[in-house]
C-alpha cells in the first residue's frame, strides 16, 4: 500500500502548492489594487483627470449614441469578414500553385500581398475610398461605406492570405503525395486533403486578425461615415471631455475580450488535439 500512500502524499503536496500560489496571487493583486486606489486619487491633478475621462454623466449621455454608431462598425465587420476569408483563400491557393503557366498569377499575388501589407491601412482607405469614386462614379456607387470596406478587404485579404499560406505549407508533403497516389487530381488534393488540415491549424491566427479588423473598421470614419470612434470624437469636442472615448473603449472591450478568450480556447484545443499531452 506504500504506492497508494505516496500518491496521496503527492496529491496533498500539489494541493498545498496550488493553495500557496493562489494565496500569493490574491495578495499581490490586492496590493496592486490598493496602491492604485489609494495613490492615484492623491495625485495633484487627479480631480481634473477624473472629470475629463471618467465623468459618469457624460458616460451615460454618450452611451446610447455610441451604441447606435457601433452598429455601423458591426455591419462593416460582418460584410467584410466573408469577403476577406474568400480573398485570403484565393491568394493563398494562387500563391501555392505549382503549374509553370501560372507564374504571372503568382507574381501578381506576391506583389499584391507585399504592397498591401506594407502600406498603412489609412492610406489604403483614403486612396480607395476617395480615389476610386473620384474617377466619376455616381451615387450610390461612390459610397464611402462601399469603397472603405473594399479597402479594408484588400488590406486584410493580404494578411489573411499569408496566414492561410502558412497553414498550407505546414501540411506535410507526404499528405499530398498520398492523396495523389490515390488518384486525386492536384485540385482535389488541395480541396479535400490540404485545405481542411491547413484551415483548422490557422484558426487561432485568423481570430487574431479578426480582432485586429474589428478595431480597424473604425478607420472607415476617416472618409465620412459616423461610426463609434467618430461619434466619440464628436461628443469629445462638443463637451471638451474625453469620457466618450472611455465609453467607446468599454463597448469595444465587450466584444474583443470574448473574442480573445475564444481564440485562447481554440488555441488550447488545437494544442491538445495535435500534441496529445498537456504539458504545463
Amino acid at each position, binding site marked *: 500500500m506504500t504506492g497508494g500512500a505516496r500518491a496521496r502524499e503527492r496529491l496533498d503536496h500539489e494541493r498545498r502548492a496550488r493553495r500557496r500560489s493562489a494565496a500569493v496571487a490574491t495578495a499581490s493583486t490586492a496590493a496592486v489594487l490598493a496602491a492604485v486606489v489609494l495613490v492615484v486619487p492623491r495625485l495633484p491633478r487627479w480631480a481634473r483627470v477624473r472629470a*475629463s*475621462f471618467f465623468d459618469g454623466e457624460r458616460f451615460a449621455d454618450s452611451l446610447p449614441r455610441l451604441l447606435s454608431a457601433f452598429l455601423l462598425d458591426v455591419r462593416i465587420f460582418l460584410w467584410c469578414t466573408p469577403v476577406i476569408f474568400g480573398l485570403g483563400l484565393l491568394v493563398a491557393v494562387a500563391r501555392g500553385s505549382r503549374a509553370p503557366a501560372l507564374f504571372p498569377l503568382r507574381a501578381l499575388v506576391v506583389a499584391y500581398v507585399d504592397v498591401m501589407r506594407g502600406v498603412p491601412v489609412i492610406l489604403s482607405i483614403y486612396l480607395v475610398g476617395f480615389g476610386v469614386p473620384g474617377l466619376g462614379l455616381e*451615387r450610390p456607387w461612390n459610397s464611402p461605406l462601399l469603397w472603405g470596406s473594399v479597402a479594408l478587404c484588400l488590406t486584410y485579404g493580404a494578411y489573411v492570405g499569408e496566414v492561410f499560406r502558412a497553414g498550407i505549407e505546414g501540411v506535410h508533403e507526404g499528405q499530398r503525395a498520398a492523396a495523389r497516389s490515390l488518384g486525386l487530381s492536384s485540385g482535389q488534393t488541395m480541396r479535400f486533403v490540404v485545405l481542411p488540415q491547413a484551415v483548422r491549424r490557422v484558426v487561432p491566427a485568423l481570430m487574431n486578425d479578426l480582432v485586429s479588423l474589428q478595431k480597424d473598421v473604425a478607420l472607415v470614419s476617416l472618409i*465620412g461615415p459616423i461610426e463609434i470612434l*467618430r461619434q466619440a470624437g464628436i461628443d469629445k469636442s462638443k463637451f471638451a*471631455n474625453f469620457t466618450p472615448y472611455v465609453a467607446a473603449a468599454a463597448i469595444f472591450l465587450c466584444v474583443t475580450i470574448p473574442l480573445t478568450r475564444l481564440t485562447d480556447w481554440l488555441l488550447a484545443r488545437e494544442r491538445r488535439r495535435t500534441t496529445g499531452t498537456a504539458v504545463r
Partner: protein
Amino acid sequence: MTRRPLLAALAATSLALAACGGDDGGASGDGTGNDCTAGKTLTDGTLTIATGNPAYEPWVAGDAPESGEGFEAAVAYAVAGALGFSDANVAWVRTGFDEAIQPGAKNFDFNLQQYSITDERKQTVSFSAPYYTSNQAVVGFADSPAVGAGSVADLRGLKFGAQSGTTSLAFITDVIKPDAEPFVYDDNAAAKAALEAKQIDAIVVDLPTAFYIAAVEIEGGTVIGQFPASEGVDADQFGLLFDLDNPLVECVDDVLASLRDDGTLATIEQEWLADKTNAPVISVD
C-alpha cells in the same frame, strides 16, 4: 477701470510699431507684461500663445503666426501689446484641439484657433470674451444643387459634410436637419476630396474659412450662402482658450474690451476679413 485709456493707447502704439518690431513697453516699461499679468504667465516676462498645426488662412497667413499676418495672428499681437508684452516677448507654440482641452498642464498661456465658446467646453477650459463673431456658411461647387437656395428647406435633400468637433457639424444636425446623416471628416482636405468624389454636395464651415477654401483650396468652389444669427441660431463666437480658471483671463478680457472699444479689433477685422463676409443669405425659417 481707470487703466483702460492708457492700455488702449498702448495697444494702438503696439499696432503702429508692430511692423518695425518696436518695443512699446508695458506698465513696467520693458515689454515683459503689465501689473495684471505679473506672475500669471507660463514663463515670467513672456506670453506663450498657441495656434493650430497647421494654422489656416485667413486666420494665420502662410502658417507663420510670428509674422503677425492673418486675423488671429494680428489679434494675438494686439492683445500681447495691450498686456504690455513686446513682440520679442511673444512665444508661439502649436497644439491640436485635443492637446488644448486635455486635463494636464498646458504649454501655452492662451490658444487661439477659432475655438467657439460653448457652455459645455467651459466646464473643462476657460474662454476670454469673444474676439470675433462668425456666421456659418455653405460651400460647394458652382454647379451644386444647393446654389440659389433661399432657405434651409431647400437644403434638406442634400448630403452634407463637416469637420469633426466643430460647431458647424452641430449646426447641420440641429438647424439644417438634412434628410441624410452628414459625413464627418478630420479636416477640410478630406471634406474637399469627398466633395470632388461627389460623396457630399456641400460642406458647412465658418464664413471666413468658407471664402478661403472656396477661393484657394477647392477649385471651382463657391460660397453658396451664409446663415445670419437669428432666433434659434446662435452666432459662433470665437474666444481665446485658457487652462481652466487661469487668472490671466481677466487681464485679457480687460484689454479685449478696450481693443473693441477703441476700434482696434474692427480695424484688424477690416484688414484681414473684409472681403470675406459678403455671401447670399439663407434664411433658417
